[in-house]
C-alpha cells in the first residue's frame, strides 16, 4: 500500500471534503468528527511518506499510470516530505482549536465550511506534492478559491478584503499560468523534472528567462512580497478566527515552497541564479519587505494585524534567503517554511483563544492576560520567542541559516535587515507582554492578592496551542535531523 501513499495523501482530504459537505445536508453532527478523522489519517499518511522518503529516497507516483512527461506525476522527495507533514499537522491542530468557533460562527453552514476547509487543504497538499507545473496551477486555484470563501465570511471588512485578495490572487495565479505557457513554448513540456532536463540546453533562451520572471512575479503576488503585499494584512486580520489560523500559516508558506520548487527543480539553480542582477534585485526587495513589514507591525494596535505584518516580514526572510542562491540561504529559506508555518499557527491559535475569551484582540484589552489565561500565554510566549529568534526555539535556527547565508554571500544588507527585524520583533512582543503582565497597575506596593481572575479558554483550544508551542521547541532541537536528513539532500548539486 505504501506505493499508493502519494495518491492517498490528497484523496483522503478530497473525498472527505465531498462527504463532509454532503453530510452537512444530512446530519451535521458527523461533519466535525469526519473532518478530524480524515485529517488525522492524511497526517498519518504524510508521516509514513516522510519516513519512507528518509529510508528509501524519493517516490514518483504516476497518476493514471502514465509515464512522466505524458501523464501527471506526484513526487515526494526530501524537499516536500517535511512540508507535507507540517501542512497537515497545522490543519489538524487548527481544526481542533477552531472547533468552538466553527460551532458558534457557522452553525448552519458547518458542512460547507468544513468542506471548504478540507478542499483548501487538499489544494495546499497538492501544490506541495505535485510534479507537474500545470497541475500546480489547478491546485493553486483550488487553494485560493476556497481561501477567498474562508476569509469572506469574517468580521467587518472581510468581504472587501477577500475580494481584493481574489483580484490579487487571480493576477498572481494567472501570471504563473502565463509563465508556464512561456515554459511550454520554449520546451514543449509541463513536467517539472522534464523541464529541468531541457533547461540546460536552453541556457541563453530569452523566452525561458522571461518565463522565470513571470512565474516568480506571479508567485510573489501570491505570497505577498513587498511591494505587492497590500492585500495580505486586511485579508488575514479580518478573516474569521477559525480560518485565520489555517490560511495565515499555510498560504504564504506554500507559495514560498512553490517558489523554491520552481526555482530549484523546474528551472535549475544554474539557470535561476545565473543572473546576479535579478537575484540582487529580489534580495533587495526582500530586505525592503523585512524592514517595512517590521516597521508597519510596530504601528499596529491589534494583535492579529500586527501578526499579519510580521508575516510580510517573514516572507522577506524566505524570499531573500532563497535568492541569496547559496546553500545556507536556500536551506534557511526551506527550513523557515516549516518553522514559520508552525510559529504563525501558534500565534494565530493564541489570538483565536484570546478573542474567544475577551472578544477583542486590541492591545488595550489585553491587560492582566497572564493571570487570566496563563496557558494560552505560555503558548503565546513560546511562539513569540520563536519569532524573535531565541534558542532553542525553531525560529533561531532558520534565522541562523539565513544569516549565515547572508554572510557567505556577502549580502550585508540582508544580514542587517534580519537582525533589525529580530530586534523589532522583540520590541513588538515585549510591548504586549508588558501590557499583559502589568496592567492594571498595582496600587502602591502590591498588597493585593486579588489579581486578574483565572478565565482560560476551553481545552480544545488550549491543548492544540500547547502542542504547537512545544513543537516549536521540538522543531528547534531536531533542526539538525531535518536539515541533514532531508533538506540538504533535496538541494540540487548546482548550489554551492
Amino acid at each position, binding site marked *: 500500500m505504501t506505493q499508493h501513499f502519494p495518491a492517498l495523501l490528497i484523496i483522503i482530504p478530497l473525498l472527505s471534503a465531498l462527504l463532509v459537505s454532503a453530510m452537512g*445536508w444530512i446530519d451535521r453532527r458527523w461533519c466535525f468528527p469526519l473532518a478530524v478523522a480524515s485529517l488525522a489519517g492524511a497526517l498519518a499518511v504524510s508521516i509514513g511518506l516522510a519516513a519512507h522518503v528518509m529510508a528509501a529516497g524519493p517516490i514518483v507516483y504516476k497518476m*493514471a*499510470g502514465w509515464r512522466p512527461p505524458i501523464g501527471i506525476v506526484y513526487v515526494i522527495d526530501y524537499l516536500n516530505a517535511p512540508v507535507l507533514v507540517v501542512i497537515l499537522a497545522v490543519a489538524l491542530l487548527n481544526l481542533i482549536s477552531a472547533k468552538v468557533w466553527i460551532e458558534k460562527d457557522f452553525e448552519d453552514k458547518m458542512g460547507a465550511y468544513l468542506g*471548504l476547509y478540507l478542499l483548501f487543504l487538499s489544494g495546499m497538499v497538492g501544490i506541495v506534492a505535485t510534479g507537474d507545473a500545470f497541475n500546480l496551477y489547478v491546485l493553486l486555484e483550488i487553494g485560493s*478559491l476556497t481561501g477567498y470563501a474562508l476569509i469572506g465570511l469574517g468580521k467587518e471588512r472581510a468581504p472587501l478584503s477577500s475580494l481584493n485578495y481574489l483580484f490579487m490572487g487571480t493576477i498572481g495565479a494567472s501570471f504563473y499560468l502565463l509563465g508556464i505557457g512561456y515554459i511550454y*513554448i520554449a520546451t514543449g513540456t509541463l513536467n517539472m523534472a522534464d523541464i529541468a532536463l531541457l533547461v540546460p540546453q536552453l541556457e541563453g533562451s530569452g523566452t525561458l528567462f522571461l518565463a522565470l520572471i513571470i512565474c516568480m512575479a506571479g508567485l510573489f503576488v501570491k505570497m505577498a512580497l513587498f511591494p505587492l503585499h497590500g492585500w495580505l494584512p486586511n485579508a488575514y486580520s479580518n478573516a474569521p478566527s477559525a480560518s485565520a489560523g489555517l490560511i495565515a500559516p499555510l498560504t504564504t508558506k506554500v507559495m514560498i515552497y512553490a517558489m523554491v520548487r520552481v526555482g530549484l527543480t523546474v528551472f535549475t539553480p544554474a539557470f535561476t541564479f545565473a543572473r546576479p542582477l535579478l537575484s540582487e534585485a529580489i534580495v533587495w526587495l526582500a530586505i525592503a519587505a523585512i524592514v517595512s513589514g517590521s516597521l508597519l507591525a510596530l504601528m499596529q494596535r491589534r494583535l492579529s494585524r500586527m501578526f499579519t505584518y510580521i508575516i510580510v516580514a517573514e516572507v522577506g526572510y524566505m524570499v531573500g534567503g532563497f535568492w541569496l542562491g547559496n546553500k545556507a540561504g536556500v536551506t534557511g529559506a526551506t527550513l523557515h517554511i516549516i518553522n514559520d508555518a508552525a510559529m504563525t499557527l501558534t500565534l494565530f491559535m493564541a489570538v483565536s483563544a484570546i478573542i474567544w475569551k475577551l472578544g477583542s484582540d486590541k492591545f488595550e484589552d489585553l491587560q492582566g492576560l497572564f493571570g487570566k489565561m496563563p496557558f494560552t500565554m505560555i503558548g503565546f510566549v513560546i511562539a513569540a520567542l520563536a519569532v524573535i529568534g531565541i534558542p532553542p526555539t525553531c525560529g533561531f535556527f532558520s534565522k541562523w541559516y539565513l544569516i549565515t547565508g547572508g554572510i557567505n554571500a556577502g549580502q550585508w544588507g540582508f544580514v542587517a535587515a534580519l537582525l533589525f527585524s529580530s530586534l523589532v520583533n522583540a520590541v513588538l512582543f515585549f510591548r504586549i507582554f508588558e501590557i499583559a503582565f502589568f496592567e492594571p497597575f498595582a496600587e502602591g506596593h502590591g498588597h493585593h492578592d486579588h489579581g486578574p481572575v483565572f478565565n482560560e479558554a476551553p481545552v480544545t483550544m488550549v491543548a492544540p496551542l500547547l502542542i504547537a508551542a512545544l513543537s516549536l521547541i521540538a522543531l528547534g532541537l531536531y533542526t539538525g535531523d531535518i536539515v541533514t536528513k532531508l533538506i540538504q539532500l533535496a538541494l540540487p548539486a548546482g548550489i554551492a
Partner: protein
Amino acid sequence: MKFLAMIAVVLTGGLLIFHTGAFPDFGDANSPANTYLSPYYLENGQADTHAPNVVTSVLADYRGYDTMFETTVVFAAGLACFFLLRRKQKPGDTPRMYRHLPTGVTLHIKEGGTLPAEDSAVFRRLDSEFVPHQIIIKNTCRIVIPFIQIFALYVVAHGHYSPGGGFQGGVLLAASFILYAISHDLRRAIRRFPEKVAALFGSMGVLIYAGTGVLCLLFGANFLNYEALAPLLGVSPVMARSHGILIVEIGVAFAVMAVIIWIYYNLSSAGKHDEGL
C-alpha cells in the same frame, strides 16, 4: 491610481510585446511546443484510449488528474457561493407580492403580515418585479428546454468522437434549468431541483470521478488508471480506458450541472432563494 496602473500596464505590456519577437511564429508546426510532447498524444491517443478526439483523451485520461481538480474547482466555487451568500429567512421578513387568482387582484403584503399558505390554490406568489405577459417566453422555453437537454446528453456521451464532453454537457444541462428558472420563476425551479439535491449532486459528481480513481486504486493499479477496471467492465484494457473516460465525464456532467445551477440560485436571489431574475 489610474495613472500608476497605466504606467505599470504599459511597462509590462511593452516588455512582453518586445519579447514576442523571440517566439516561434504563429502557426509554426516546428516549435518545441508542437514537436516535443504533443505528437505522442496525437499518435497514440486513439490506440491508448480508443477516443478519436485527442482533447478528450488527454483531458480525461492522460491528464485526468487535472480534470478531477477542475471539477473540484467548480464544486468549490459552488460551495463558496453558498457559504458566502446563503441566508435563511423566515417567511414574512420581506414584503411579498401575491396574486389572488380568482379576482386577478395583486396583493402586496408588508413585513410581518399574514401570508397565504404555501400550497394555496387561490393565491400565487409573484416576483416583485414581475413581467405581466410572458406567455410567449414561457411557452417557447417549454418547447426548447427538452431539446437543449437532449443535445446536452449527446454532448456528454459523444465527447469521445466530437468536441464536447462532460463539462460542456453539464453546462448545457445547467443552462436549460437556468432558462426554466428565468422564464418561470426561481421558486418553481427550486421546487423541481431543490438546493439540497443540487448540493448533493455536486458532491456526488466529483465523488464519481474520484471514486473511479479510488476504485482503480482498490484494483491495485495507480490512481485513475482505468485499465484496472477492465475485469470489472469485462472489456479489454484499452476499452476500459474508453469506458473510464465516459464514466468520469458523466461524473463531471453531474457535478457541473448541479453546481452551476446552485451558483445561479445563490447569485440570482442574493442567497435568499426567494425571488430570482
